[in-house]
């Protein structure tokens, strides 16, 4: 009897625990309310290429690369507490790995991209491991130096075409494949990370961000978890890099360009830090905007900066946090 009672209590509780996190779904309306933004995003991303002309389709591919970088930046900064300015290193390692495999062994991009995703991530993680004992601004500075460091190693040793780079790499079959590969990657990465941060491993990442000393006191090695987190983030970044080298059919030192470290941060600030989807949307807005402003010549950078400063001053929470707040004021589609 007592056993039965206890089991019942336990059952009630676990229902409660889960329902607190997931809301009580009681009607189609509620389900619609919850599913709507997600569906809108997925459908939006899938339909977007159909509405664009050739030029803007190329821009979308580039925007996708920045979106992936912004996602990995946001994950590391807001869920693990590592502000990583080494986006260019992920791109560089991924891009060089896949480009070199393609140029020297003539493997198809469909083989080199997965290999470079893994290989680039392993290399980036190995390089970052010695820096993981650093925190905050110190980690940011060191991670910012690493791409520069890599550039000079390549020049000094005359590796992989040195300053010239390697051109005439294989590209993906056509523009549609190019677009949907990157869009698919964004959707998969986004939802995978969203799920991950609520699993046990993700909770430990967030705990490390909130208080790393307390995590150590709980018997968990923060270094090993940080390595896991960096590996996950660099998987995303290296994929973007590998994709990039096949998108342009070229690899060179500009894969380590500062843009890849900085622009994702701007996208994350604009889209809303910590929302994961925000930075993706931020990148998809910012990259075409910078493209559209090309006509203004040097003024382009000024306008670009104004938009950013505007966001930081007047909407520091970012687009996504703002929209989310407004959306939840709809009272789940019920009439008030």
């Amino acid at each position, binding site marked *: 009897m007592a056993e039965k009672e206890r089991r019942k209590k336990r059952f009630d509780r676990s229902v409660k625990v889960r329902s607190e996190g997931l809301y009580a779904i009681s009607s189609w309306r509620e389900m619609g309310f919850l599913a709507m933004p997600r569906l809108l995003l997925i459908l939006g991303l899938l339909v977007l290429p159909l509405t664009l002309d050739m030029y803007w389709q190329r821009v979308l591919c580039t925007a996708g690369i920045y979106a992936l970088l912004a996602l990995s930046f946001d994950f590391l900064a807001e869920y693990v507490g590592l502000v990583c300015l080494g986006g260019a290193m992920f791109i560089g390692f991924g891009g060089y790995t896949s480009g070199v495999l393609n140029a020297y062994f003539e493997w198809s991009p469909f083989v080199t991209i997965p290999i470079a995703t893994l290989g680039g991530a392993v290399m980036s993680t190995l390089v970052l491991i010695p820096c993981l004992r650093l925190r905050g601004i110190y980690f940011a500075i060191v991670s910012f130096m690493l791409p520069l460091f890599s550039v000079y190693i390549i020049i000094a040793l005359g590796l992989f075409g040195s300053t010239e780079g390697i051109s005439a790499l294989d590209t993906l079959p056509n523009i549609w494949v190019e677009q949907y590969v990157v869009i698919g990657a964004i959707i998969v990465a986004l939802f995978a990370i969203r799920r991950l941060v609520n699993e046990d491993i993700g*909770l430990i990442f967030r*705990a490390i961000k909130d208080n790393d000393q*307390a995590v150590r*006191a*709980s*018997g968990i090695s923060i270094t090993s978890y940080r390595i896991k987190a960096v590996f996950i983030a660099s998987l995303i970044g290296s994929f973007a890099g590998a994709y990039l080298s096949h998108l342009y059919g070229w690899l060179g030192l500009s894969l380590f360009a500062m843009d890849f470290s900085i622009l994702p941060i701007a996208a994350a600030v604009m889209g809303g830090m910590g929302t994961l989807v925000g930075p993706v949307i931020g990148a998809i807005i910012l990259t075409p905007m910078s493209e559209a402003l090309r006509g203004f010549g040097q003024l382009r950078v000024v306008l670009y900066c104004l938009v950013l400063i505007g966001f930081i001053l007047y909407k520091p929470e970012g687009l996504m946090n703002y929209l989310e707040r407004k959306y939840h004021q709809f009272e789940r589609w019920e009439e008030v």
Partner: protein
Amino acid sequence: MDREPILQVNGLSKAFGGVQAVLEVNFDLFKGEILGIIGPNGAGKTTLVNLITGFVKPDAGSVLFKGKNIKGFQPHKIANLGLVRTFQVMRPYHSLAAFKNLIVPLNSPRVRRTSGGKLGDRDSVAIDILEEIGFERDARVPYKTAGSLPLGYLKRLELARCIALRPEVILCDEVFSGLSMSEIASMIPLLEKLQMEGITIMMIEHRLRELFRLADRVAVINFGRKIAEGIPKEVMEKEEVKVAYLGTGKRK
């Protein structure tokens, strides 16, 4: 009582620059007892806890836990051996729900090992522990984010995180500080219960009256040195202890 020492601290010393925070402190912690560590502010009590649990590297001395020297071990290694601590300034994971705070220790190698992989639903286990430590099961408190909890609950959460690790020894760093009398009154039975369950406790405390209700023995620390040790009543009678707490009384 069984007089088997579970933790032996020998000649432990640490200087921060010119400040000798801890100097040649020796004491034994016996299995199943509650040992109080008292001393004026800045006496080196918290440093002592940091030294024992590996958060600060000692300059000299040794720490034996169950006969094994753990000096120089990483903090998480020491916690996994069953020697855990609380923090004086609470360190909750403020963005996580209170019960999710316990998911961290529940994923430690120690818990995985001792439960033999049969822990079951970690959320339920976490809430069981929180209930044991005085969170009302049916209230919303366990599900609130830790950042929004009042101080009393945070102190309990700090203790709950230790208990989740199934420790053998808990080093409590001022678990009563900042709590109201009634909150303290409800914490005391908790610590007594832990002792009944066979957990050895070392408590750093400023609230002497409450500490003396609990502690089997106390040690007094002043300027990094241990100046007295024994059963509470006798210790407080000693001249050095009175001087440390009340001053020399030379100036009138």
